[in-house]
């Protein structure tokens, strides 16, 4: 189970940066629960991750998640900010 929001955010972005996948695979790989994933996809990741499918707790597993090429730069920027935060903590 992932503790902080920052850590969860970083894991989601890094995982999807490597490869697009369905919600079940992302949940399994990151260990994040459906609630947190849906919340992040609606807020902090809304401009980075493309969701093909329903963005609900019940259906997020079936949704297809990806970071499109034009959002790659923004994803890397967020990862950079997170790394900086971890270093300065």
């Amino acid at each position: 189970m992932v503790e902080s929001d920052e850590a969860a955010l970083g894991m989601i972005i890094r995982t999807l940066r490597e490869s697009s996948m369905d919600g079940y695979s992302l949940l399994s790989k990151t260990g994040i629960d459906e609630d947190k994933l849906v919340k992040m996809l609606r807020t902090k990741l809304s401009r980075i991750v493309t969701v093909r499918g329903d963005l609900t707790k019940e259906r997020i597993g079936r949704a297809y998640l990806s970071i499109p090429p034009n959002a790659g730069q923004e994803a890397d920027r967020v990862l950079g900010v997170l790394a900086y935060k971890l270093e300065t903590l």
Partner: protein
Amino acid sequence: MSGLASPDVPAYICYLIVFFFGTFVAVRTVNERLSARPAAWAFASTWLLLVAHVALPVLTFWLLDYTGVVNDTSIFAALLVAFAVRLIFAGEVKGVALPAQAAALWKPFQAWVEYVVKRIDDHNARYTERFEEKILSLITNDPQRMAKFDALVQASSGNLPALQAALLALPVSANPAVNSRRKVDLMWEDLRKAKPQLYGWLLWKNGIVPGLTYWLWVEKGRAKLISAGVVLSMVLAVVGIGFWFTSDNVTRSRQHTAWLNYYKWRFLKASATDRDRWRSREYVAQELCNWSSQPGQTLVDTEAKRRVDTEAKRRVEVADIFLPALLRELRYPGVTPVQAREILAGLVNCHSPALNAVYVPKLIDSFRTQNETVRLETRRALVALTVDYPKAKLADNLAKWEPKKDETPGDIDQRVRQWHLWWKSATATRRP
């Protein structure tokens, strides 16, 4: 790559290089773009995407040659375009720059690719849902499968107590089928979360899903079948075209026509390299210079007759395809003196009464539309051809005619009529 040293080979080889290597790159690009969509190659949209990515380097190669940035006979240019077409559009390859308007097409192309990828995503989501629905119905309606599924989920669950609690908390309906389905749905979710990659294989291994269903849906069986079908169709098409081209092995007319059209294009191409021009001249000479051989009168064996027939057919094809294009180019007011000289040299070098008879009247007529430099070259060519008609005297005013820029249409018309009179007398002297 006009300035880069590179082996100069026939253009069709370079286009084939761009096509073949471009196809490999295109397949890789599409696979990368659609990674993790298990059934992507089962959809027509994916094949459309592939066709677009294969066509892109070929069209770019043609455009770069057309705009004079590279030569379409350069192997290095062909390889560069096949492998780095995206970098060329991004302007990251020094010395190989597309015109600004063409480079601007990249964005709409990318937008279209995004649109198609979204469509593929929709297809993929529907495809996965249909599979799930099929499996869930299969399990719900079969008590044996239900028992196996129950055992598999309980054994694989990442959080068994939570699953059991959730199952107990399910609302109970008066319809047992509804209760079963709710239970299966919940267990399915748990299995997918616990084994996101292996769930299909586990279902098949435990005898819950038939082997064919598993292969078709989870092991990309449908995509593999469709891909194999498309590749097989393409191979058959290539073999079919090859067979069609070579099936008339007596006259080889189809191949001959294709080569004539190819070399017509190369011979008249203004930006061809010197070596490519030389190759075209060699072909033109080969096609035109054997017209001097006259068919014998005493041919008795069928092989010799067949050879003569084939030769006659080849001549007809040259007369239909090649010569009109050359004469048309001579009439074009903007034709360069170098090109005009090359065309006329090709005709004069291969002069023979048989060949002359096909084009001389039209060449004389073309005086009317040519510029004065080309008129002078044409006059010199016609004078050179008089060697085939020693008995027909050419008037001095025609032999020494120096075309001028300010000649009136009336003056030119008079010359044309005089040249036609000479031609009439020349052909009369050749008649048996």
